[in-house]
C-alpha cells in the first residue's frame, strides 16, 4: 500500500497493487493460522478478522484511486499534474465515491454522491 497506493500513485503501480492484493488475500485465507479455538474467548481470532478487514479496505482504496483520474487532496496521481501541482478534474470527478460490494471477485459498483456547492465557486487552489 505504501509503495503503490501511497502519497503519489500511478496507473501502473495501482494495477500492480491490485494483483498483489489479490494474491495476498488468497494466501491469507489459505494459510492463516489462528491459535486457540472458536468455542472460547479468542483475541487472536479477533486480530485475524481485523487483518481480513484491512486487506478488503486496502483493495477498496486501490480500486477507488485507480478509478479517479485526477489529483485531488491526499490523492495525487502522477499522471495528472501541472509541474507538481495537483490537477483536478471537476467536470468528471466532482463526487464522493461509495463502492458497493458485489462479491469477492466481482467488480464493485460505483455510486456517486454529487457534491453541490451553493455559495462558493470551484477554483484551483494555488500555494504559489
Amino acid at each position, binding site marked *: 500500500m505504501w509503495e503503490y497506493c501511497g502519497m503519489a500513485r500511478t496507473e501502473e503501480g495501482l494495477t500492480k497493487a491490485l494483483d498483489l492484493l489479490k494474491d495476498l488475500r488468497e494466501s491469507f485465507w489459505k494459510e492463516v493460522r489462528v*491459535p*486457540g479455538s472458536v468455542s*472460547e*474467548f*479468542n*483475541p*487472536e481470532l479477533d486480530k485475524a478478522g481485523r487483518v481480513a478487514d484491512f486487506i478488503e479496505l486496502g483493495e477498496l482504496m486501490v480500486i477507488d484511486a485507480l478509478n479517479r483520474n485526477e489529483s485531488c487532496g491526499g490523492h495525487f496521481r502522477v499522471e495528472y499534474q501541472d509541474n507538481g501541482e495537483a490537477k483536478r478534474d471537476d467536470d468528471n470527478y466532482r463526487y464522493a465515491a461509495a463502492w458497493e460490494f458485489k462479491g469477492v471477485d466481482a467488480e464493485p459498483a460505483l455510486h456517486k454522491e454529487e457534491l453541490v456547492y451553493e455559495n462558493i465557486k470551484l477554483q484551483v487552489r494555488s500555494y504559489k
Partner: protein
Amino acid sequence: MKFNLKVWRQKNANTPGKLVDYSIDNINGDMSFLEMVDVLNDNLVRQGEDPIAFDHDCREGICGMCSMYINGRAHGPQHAATTCQLYMRSFKDGDTVYVEPWRAKAFPVIKDLVTDRSAFDRIIAKGGFVSVNTGQAQDANNLPVNKAYAEKAMDAAACIGCGACVAACPNSAAMLFVSAKISQLALLPQGEPERNNRAIAMVNQMDEDGFGNCTNIGACEAECPKEIKLTNIARLNREYIAASVINE
C-alpha cells in the same frame, strides 16, 4: 533482560486455572509490561501454543483496560501507573514475576488474565443518564462552582474504572470506584437534581453485583493508578446516608 514468569492460565470461568512457568530473554528495559507479554505471546504462537489472553487498549494509561496483578500488586510495583505504563526497567534482570488476573467474585475470569468487568458498567448505568433536551447550554459563568469543589470533582473524575481498587481490596469492595463516580457528580451543580436517587441506585447495584464493603483498609487508594483519594468513600457514605433519610 531475562525474566522467569509465572502466569495464570485459565481456559474459562468454569475450569480451574493454574500458574504456568515461562522464561523470556532479550527483553529491552524500555518495553512496557504489556509489550513484554506481546513478545512472549509471539514466541508462544511460533511454538504452536495458545497465547496468553489479556486486556489492553490505549496503552497510554487512560483507558482502564489493562488489568494485571503483578507480584501481588494491582498494576505492579510502580506507584500511580497502569500496567501499560509499567516498564521492564522497574524489575531486576533475572527476576521471577507473578502475573495474575484481578481476583474478585464480581469479576469472573473470562480467560487467562481477562476478567468480566461489566459489573462496573451496570453500576455506572444505575447512575442515570442526562439525556433530557433542555435547550442550549447556558453560559458557564451562570453556574458558579467553588474552585476547591471543582478541583475535587476533577480529581474524582480521573478514575478510569480499571478495577484495581476491587482487586487490591481484601473485601473485594468497589467503594473507591463508586465513590469517585458519585463524587464527581455530587460536587457539581449539574449533578444536583438526581443526587439522592443516584447514590441509592449505584450502591444497591454495587451490592447486587457481589462487591464487598469498605473496612477502611486503604489498599485501594495505595494501588489506584489515578490516585483516587479515600476521602471520596467518606463522601459516598455521607451521600448514601443523607439520601436514605431524605428518601424515607
